[in-house]
């Protein structure tokens, strides 16, 4: 008989900042707007980078891969810029919720191609990663005029708010919990069969390591989930890889990076779907080269023992 292997994730969506710190930023936004919050952010990030070994450690996994030749002050600078950009994303997300969506312009590359893919009526798998501000990016996809189902896990104790929570509006997406019944796969399958959009993160593994494939990324191997590729194989839905990036103080860019077509494949092994996951990883690596400070996975993706490590308190 088969035995299901449940594993713990090595990441967590919980913030390293306290509730009062988040509230201080929200207050700054209400009183002085984005610039006031950014002003605070420069000092707060500097404090964390200088005095929090936890913050530095969590940034170090990615920075060591992305900037392998840097050390000392240069590494500290990279760390500061990475956490600063991440902080800006969190501020921007709150700004959209508190001050409204017109606070930012979102430029979309690939609109026509997305419409063509939608019109194939096989459903659409939007695959992104923890880069840029994916929440803002999602808000720019309303033109597709299809229900959006988002595979999203939120930890107990995650105090950071999404933009719609700031705005006090209902969540615009149907949330599918990857730790729910059968990992949400039946819900995703049902949505795709109805021609809807399913949005997934291609860079983080949830739950069982049976559902992950190892791919090359920034000079090492990382485990990424392959359920989406299996769903694409079953339904014929195209996988649209897209990434958002902060393009300016008040603007974001949403780019369609690649369309992955998965043919009907028999079986469910990681090896079967690894070549498709590798295509995604290649695009993500390319993104990290173009936007080195907009990659926000603050844990050791490259650990071969990833599944056995304890969860960390970390921001999504």
């Amino acid at each position, binding site marked *: *008989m*088969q*035995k*299901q292997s449940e594993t713990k994730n090595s990441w967590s969506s919980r913030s390293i900042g306290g509730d009062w710190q988040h509230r201080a930023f929200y207050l700054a936004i209400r009183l002085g707007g984005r610039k006031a919050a950014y002003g605070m952010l420069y000092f707060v990030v500097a404090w964390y980078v200088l005095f929090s070994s936890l913050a530095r450690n969590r940034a170090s996994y990615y920075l060591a891969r992305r900037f392998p030749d840097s050390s000392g002050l240069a590494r500290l600078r990279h760390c500061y810029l990475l956490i600063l950009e991440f902080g800006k994303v969190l501020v921007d997300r709150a700004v959209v919720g508190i001050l409204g969506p017109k606070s930012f312009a979102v430029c979309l590359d690939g609109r026509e191609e997305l419409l063509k893919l939608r019109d194939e009526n096989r459903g659409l798998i939007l695959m992104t990663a923890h880069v840029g501000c994916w929440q803002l990016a999602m808000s720019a996809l309303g033109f597709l005029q299809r229900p959006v189902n988002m595979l999203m896990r939120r930890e107990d104790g995650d105090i950071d708010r999404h933009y719609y929570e700031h705005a006090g509006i209902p969540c615009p997406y149907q949330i599918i919990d990857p730790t729910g*019944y*059968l*990992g*949400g*796969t*039946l*819900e995703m*399958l*049902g*949505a795709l*069969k*109805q021609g809807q959009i399913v949005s997934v993160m291609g860079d983080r593994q949830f*739950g*069982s390591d*049976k*559902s992950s494939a190892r791919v090359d990324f920034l000079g090492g191997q990382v485990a990424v989930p392959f*359920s989406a590729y*299996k*769903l694409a194989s*079953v339904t014929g839905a195209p996988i649209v890889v897209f990434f958002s990036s902060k393009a300016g103080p008040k603007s974001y860019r949403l780019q369609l990076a690649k369309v992955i077509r998965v043919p009907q494949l028999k*079986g*469910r092994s990681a090896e079967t779907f690894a070549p498709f996951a590798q295509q995604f990883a290649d695009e993500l690596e390319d993104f990290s080269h173009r936007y080195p400070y907009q990659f926000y996975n603050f844990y050791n993706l490259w650990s071969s023992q990833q599944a056995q490590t304890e969860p960390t308190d970390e921001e999504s």
Partner: protein
Amino acid sequence: MDIKEKLKQVLIEELNLEDVTPEEIGDDDQLFGEGLGLDSLDAVELVVVVQKHFGVEIKDMEEGRPALQSISTLAAFIEAKQKG
């Protein structure tokens, strides 16, 4: 061959269940988690298998969740759909 027996056979074949015989699968054993130990990806495959071998489509979670509990529930679902 009745639906339950055929289900057990195609499950073993299509999901590559190693070292499992149809006799070892109880009609009321849970398919997922405890019992047969299938997982979320197997669920996707199972939906495909049911459509391929029985011509029955499991459209969504509302249909799938009660149907995919055990061989008995799945067989009952298939039978009802085929009659309907």
